[in-house]
């Protein structure tokens, strides 16, 4: 074993930390035929590799394959339920083994050596992480090996709030309150209006007087105050439309927004 390859060397502490299968067995003792102890086929392979007591980089993949297959065989002989992934790995390893034993020229691509190398790399990585975990767990850990102060006084920052408000904000707030809550009263004031009925009556009556074109405005009451005038205009306009619809009036307008004229139809 090469001392310089420290991270790859087995670390004694790791097994102790989690009490894994490797720790509970003797050197050559029969493996526990219990799959619960392993975290999958790769884990079992790594455990078997560890038993070769060599650097993972110098491990014999063939020997490893034999051990794995032997293990699975024994498990099957005991009629243990084997998880599918263990069996898949066994099949793949059996294939790898036969390929490794075949003459070189009959190799497929990728070559079995490449497959073996990949497997080896993966085992190295898993092994490295396992040892790293063990070294991590063996550190001086807070609450187990080193301790914080038992009864710290604690730091406290008392926040003292200084409230700020100026008179403008104050007065505006008051205005807002009043504006918000002031009762809103909608009062409809009594206004002089000309109803549609009276406009109809008025317009048709005036149309009966003449055959000439008469501008709409001339139908309005002459001395009405402005608001009544507006109402009369609107009502008379609608009355004119209604009379036109009934065929009792003709409408004419020379331009948009121009004066609207009406007269009694000649036939009527």
């Amino acid at each position, binding site marked *: 074993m090469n001392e310089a390859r420290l991270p790859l060397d087995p670390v004694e502490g790791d097994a102790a930390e989690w009490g894994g299968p490797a720790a509970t067995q003797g050197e050559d003792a029969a493996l526990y035929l219990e799959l619960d102890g392993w975290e999958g086929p790769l884990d079992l392979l790594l455990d078997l590799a560890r038993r070769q007591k060599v650097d993972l980089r110098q491990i014999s993949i063939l020997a490893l394959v034999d051990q794995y297959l032997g293990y699975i065989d024994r498990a099957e002989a005991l009629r243990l339920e084997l998880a599918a992934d263990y069996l898949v790995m066994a099949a793949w390893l059996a294939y790898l083994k036969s390929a490794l034993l075949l003459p070189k020229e009959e190799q497929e691509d990728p070559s079995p050596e490449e497959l073996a190398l990949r497997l080896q790399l993966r085992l190295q990585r898993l092994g490295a992480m396992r040892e790293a975990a063990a070294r991590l767990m063996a550190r001086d850990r807070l609450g187990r090996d080193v301790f914080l102060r038992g009864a710290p006084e604690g730091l*406290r920052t008392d*926040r003292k709030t200084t409230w*700020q408000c100026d*008179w403008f904000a104050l*007065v505006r707030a008051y*205005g807002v*309150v009043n504006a918000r809550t002031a009762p809103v009263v909608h009062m409809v004031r009594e206004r002089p209006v000309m109803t549609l009925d009276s406009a109809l009556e008025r317009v048709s009556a005036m149309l009966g007087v003449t055959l000439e074109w008469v501008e709409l405005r001339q139908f309005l009451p002459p001395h009405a105050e402005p608001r009544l005038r507006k109402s009369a205009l609107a009502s008379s306009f609608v009355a004119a439309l209604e009379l036109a619809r009934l065929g009792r009036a003709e409408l004419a307008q020379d331009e948009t927004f121009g004066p609207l004229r009406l007269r009694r139809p000649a036939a009527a």
Partner: protein
Amino acid sequence: MSERPDDLERAIEATLFAAEEPMTPESLAGHLGDLAVPDVRQALKALSVHYQGRGIHLVERDRRWHFQTAPDLAHLLRREREQVRRLSRAATEVLAIVAYHEPVSRAEIESIRGVQTSSGTLDVLMEVGWVRVAGRREVPGRPVIYATTAEFLAHFGLSSRRDLPGIDELKAAGLLDPVDDVFDALMGDGEDRVEEDEGGGNSPETDDNKA
């Protein structure tokens, strides 16, 4: 290190540090494995000498030893941070209402605001020192009434509530017109408000123009 503590001192140092309560020399001696109590006492003395002048002290209280912050540094543990915050809108409104209508009950404030007022809002204003309890109104239920304080006047730079800026303008703008009948009812027909001479917007007489 100029003065390397011996093993016993280190052990005591660590134990007292990690301990959740002060410890007597006897309990220390027991904890550390049946040591001679006089040795522990001596180590405690040596340690306390070491910590003199440092930021933490090793002190004996009632025969029990513990570490504590140096007394002159106690202020470091309780820091005061001043924080300037703007009064919330709700609080500003309540404050304004109290100022213009005082003395005023919470129900009246709510009636004027048109929304429920959390008691926290008045609490904040009293905590700030701008509003105080000014007794109870002698009406059924005897509600607590609130008024502003001298501090309030000082903060807003007023010599009296008559100075409340903008009150005349508000009145002229009709902003101080009374609110509604509920308000009138709550005000108990105004008979107990004789002493109220200012802020006049809420006087019942002006209610008439609503009809």
